[in-house]
């Protein structure tokens, strides 16, 4: 490889870094002021791309028309951002951060269905940009003119934002609010207006980024989540709330990826290593290295106050399960065991889905309840378990071995990722879990030769003796019941108390000799193992496995189930999984827009019960006493 082609790759990296920075800058700006991590920021980006496509066609050809369409798309997205802030987020500023994040995911689902209805499922190719459609010559290598523009756009936006924040009255207010909201409000800053303005600006940047990206990448329905995951990585690496940090992080990640592509396949000690395939791993390595050295990112500061408003449920007194609960569990088990005799095949399949979802959610409830750690990427461990089981079968292992491998593999993954995650708390932790999950997803999606890529792996059927649906159902029931029993025992035992102690007061826990971080790390790994077991059962129940089993929506499914069922409720995961799975199934049968039904459900839960359903129940109990 010549130096020139190497340089071209680096320039490519700079162009990608620029557009990523535009997205991350808006995200981090909004967070800095409102303390809301806006999951829907990626949706605004996606809308920017789609709107630029439509407006581009409306406005017709020519350079002026093109740039008018880009500007108009960004402005429309800014207006949509304002609507979002005023209609939804404004009501949630006092809610726990975890619920805000969940609510904005509800918006992601709704926006995606709106985009599906408006623009269809096909990718929409962007225009060739007038006067910038060609290439320039760099030492004999062509380089797209448009990418030059992008390379310039990043630093320009950084400069403009820096000027805005440091030199204007608006910037002073933004900094004051970011530093101390209460004080800023006491000094007469119109907080509501300021938040709306900041949100509009952030949305504008997202819309602009999407519109600018259109000539490089067709508008499609998956760009929302893929860009938000990358933007999360950039903001976490750069330090939440830091715009220069986001710029540096975008640059570092963009360049490291470019470097991997530029290196190509290199012979290392006789083994050919294909670096272009390692771009995702490289991103992970960068993030891991930064967070290991600086847990709050390159330019981030450790939050002064605890980073998360705890849910009231986390202060509620937990009464250990007693005889009554044991009888109830036994009765439930018996009823579920008898179900195949009474119900049809369809009901049995649905119940099996519910059981698996319940185990998956129970593992998350363990992490969020006693552990106090909210994961937005718990599906990673579900998926690792599912893939481990599927791969084991593909390589000739028996079902028993495969099912045992599922939690083991997920445990190992959770040990590795958990090491980083438990160094953070609150939304920081949630974003990191999501970033890790997205990396696992990308690996499953792209590593064709092993994981089967987007098609996944098929032909994962249970062993001979469980070959009938009825038998596999009973097997699933037995495993889920056993796992739930073990999980409840752990949560109610000495380890569970230590874990809750670490959550309630890390200061006190350390002062009585408990290792808070190790305790939380162990809990993270255990939760991963149980999620992996659920994943293993899932693989055999479906007979196949695809990257969807570890995508972000599945992580959020588990989260919604936990919120529905309550953080402290013993049977919460089962009841929540029952309600959620049934609703999703019912919605999917009547409309292709079932995702937005789930989205509306999420919004309803969060807006009607801004302290969570469990919190609302606890409040009612207190009132009625």
């Amino acid at each position, binding site marked *: 490889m010549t130096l020139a082609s190497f340089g071209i790759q680096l320039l490519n990296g700079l162009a990608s870094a620029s557009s990523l920075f535009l997205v991350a800058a808006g995200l981090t700006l909004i967070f800095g002021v409102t303390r809301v991590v806006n999951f829907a920021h990626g949706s605004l980006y996606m809308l920017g791309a789609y709107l630029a496509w439509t407006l581009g066609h409306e406005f017709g050809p020519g350079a002026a028309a093109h740039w008018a369409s880009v500007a108009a798309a960004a402005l429309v997205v800014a207006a949509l951002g304002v609507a979002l802030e005023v209609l939804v987020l404004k009501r949630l500023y006092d809610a726990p951060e975890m619920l805000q994040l969940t609510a904005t995911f509800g918006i992601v689902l709704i926006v995606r269905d709106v985009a599906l209805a408006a623009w269809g499922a096909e990718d929409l190719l962007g225009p060739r940009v007038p006067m910038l459609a060609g290439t320039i010559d760099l030492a004999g290598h062509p380089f797209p003119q448009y990418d030059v523009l992008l390379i310039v756009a990043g630093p320009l936006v950084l400069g403009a934002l820096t000027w805005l924040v440091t030199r204007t009255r608006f910037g002073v207010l933004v900094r004051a609010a970011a530093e101390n909201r209460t004080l800023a409000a006491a000094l007469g800053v119109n907080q509501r207006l300021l938040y709306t303005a900041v949100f509009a600006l952030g949305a504008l940047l997202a819309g602009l980024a999407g519109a600018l990206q259109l000539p490089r990448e067709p508008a499609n329905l998956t760009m929302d989540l893929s860009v938000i995951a990358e933007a999360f990585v950039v903001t976490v690496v750069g330090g939440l709330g830091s715009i220069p940090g986001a710029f540096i992080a975008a640059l570092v990640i963009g360049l490291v990826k470019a470097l991997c592509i530029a290196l190509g396949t290199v012979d290392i000690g006789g083994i050919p290593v294909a670096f272009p395939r390692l771009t995702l791993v490289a991103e992970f390595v960068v993030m891991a290295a930064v967070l290991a050295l600086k847990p709050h990112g390159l330019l981030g500061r450790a939050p002064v106050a605890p980073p998360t408003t705890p849910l009231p449920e986390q202060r509620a007194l937990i009464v250990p399960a007693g005889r009554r609960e044991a009888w109830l569990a036994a009765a439930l088990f018996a009823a579920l065991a008898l179900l195949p005799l009474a119900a049809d095949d369809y009901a049995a399949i649905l119940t099996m889905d519910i059981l698996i979802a319940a185990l998956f959610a129970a593992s998350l409830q363990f992490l969020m309840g006693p552990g106090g750690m909210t994961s937005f990427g718990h599906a990673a461990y579900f998926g690792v378990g599912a893939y481990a089981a599927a791969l084991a079968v593909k390589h000739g292992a028996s079902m028993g071995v495969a099912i045992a491998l599922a939690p083991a593999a997920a445990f190992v993954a959770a040990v590795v990722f958990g090491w980083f995650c438990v160094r953070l708390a609150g939304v920081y932790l949630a974003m990191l879990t999501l970033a890790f999950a997205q990396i696992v997803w990308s690996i499953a999606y792209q590593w064709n030769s092993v994981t089967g890529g987007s098609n996944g792996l098929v032909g994962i059927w249970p062993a001979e003796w469980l070959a009938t649906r009825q038998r596999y159902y009973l097997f699933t029931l037995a495993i889920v019941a056993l796992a739930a029993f073990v999980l409840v025992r752990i949560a109610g035992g000495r380890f569970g108390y230590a874990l809750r102690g670490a959550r309630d*007061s890390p200061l006190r826990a350390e*002062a009585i000799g*408990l*290792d808070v971080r190790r305790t939380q790390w162990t809990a993270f790994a255990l939760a991963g193992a149980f999620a992996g077991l659920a994943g293993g059962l899932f693989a055999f129940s479906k007979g196949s496995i695809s990257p969807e089993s570890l995508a972000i929506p599945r992580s959020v499914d588990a989260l919604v189930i936990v919120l529905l069922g309550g953080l402290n409720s013993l049977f919460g995961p089962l009841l929540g999984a029952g309600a959620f799975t049934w609703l999703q199934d019912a919605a999917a049968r009547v409309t292709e827009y079932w995702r937005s039904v789930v989205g509306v459900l999420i919004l309803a839960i969060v807006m009607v019960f801004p302290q969570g359903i469990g919190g609302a129940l606890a409040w009612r109990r207190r009132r009625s006493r």
Partner: protein
Amino acid sequence: MSAPVLSVKGIAKAFDGIQAVAGVSFDVHAGELVALIGPNGAGKTTCFNVVNGQLTPDAGTVALDDAPITGLPSRAIARRGVGRTFQVAATFASMTVRENVVVALSALGRDPAAADALLARVGAAELASAHTATLAYGDAKRVELALAIAGQPRLLLMDEPTAGMSARDRSTPMRLARELADDDRIAVLFTEHDMDVVFGFADRVIVLDRGEVIAQGAPDAIRADPRVQEVYLGG
């Protein structure tokens, strides 16, 4: 005199260029109640946090029974026999009072069955089944004291033990500390704003000002020290 339980030698700590503590040295012996006083910002809490391992000093050493503990994490120092209360009582909110104590006992490898006796000792026996998050402030402080002494510490650190308590309750934690010092030969180091409490209970007083020890000695001598009067007692 026997070797001190706690020996602090020349500790220094700066935050962002501001010297919070500069070369502070003092000892605390078994059975002794020592007050660490000084105006706001004098470095009392920094000293506490260095002794208890929440902060690593820039310079100096801390030794417990002659063994160095400088820079060890809090939990390791706790296991070596240092108990601590905080300015704002730190307890486990989602548990009953008894469960709080059981967690503390088992974390330090002691028999959880001792929980009720420990609660009785701090005068909180009747609170055993109460939900910790709902306790009155003074009660929470008593429970916290039980957590701090659950590991049978050699040294007890009490950060503002009477802050926020009613005048009537104020002597309770100090009388308990006195008992622990007398009966169990625990060394007690406490910070306190209320001078009645300081001079009513301390065997010895150490006065800090701007990160340095300006005087230490018996309460009567401290009361008479003109330098102390100048910087602290309103001069």
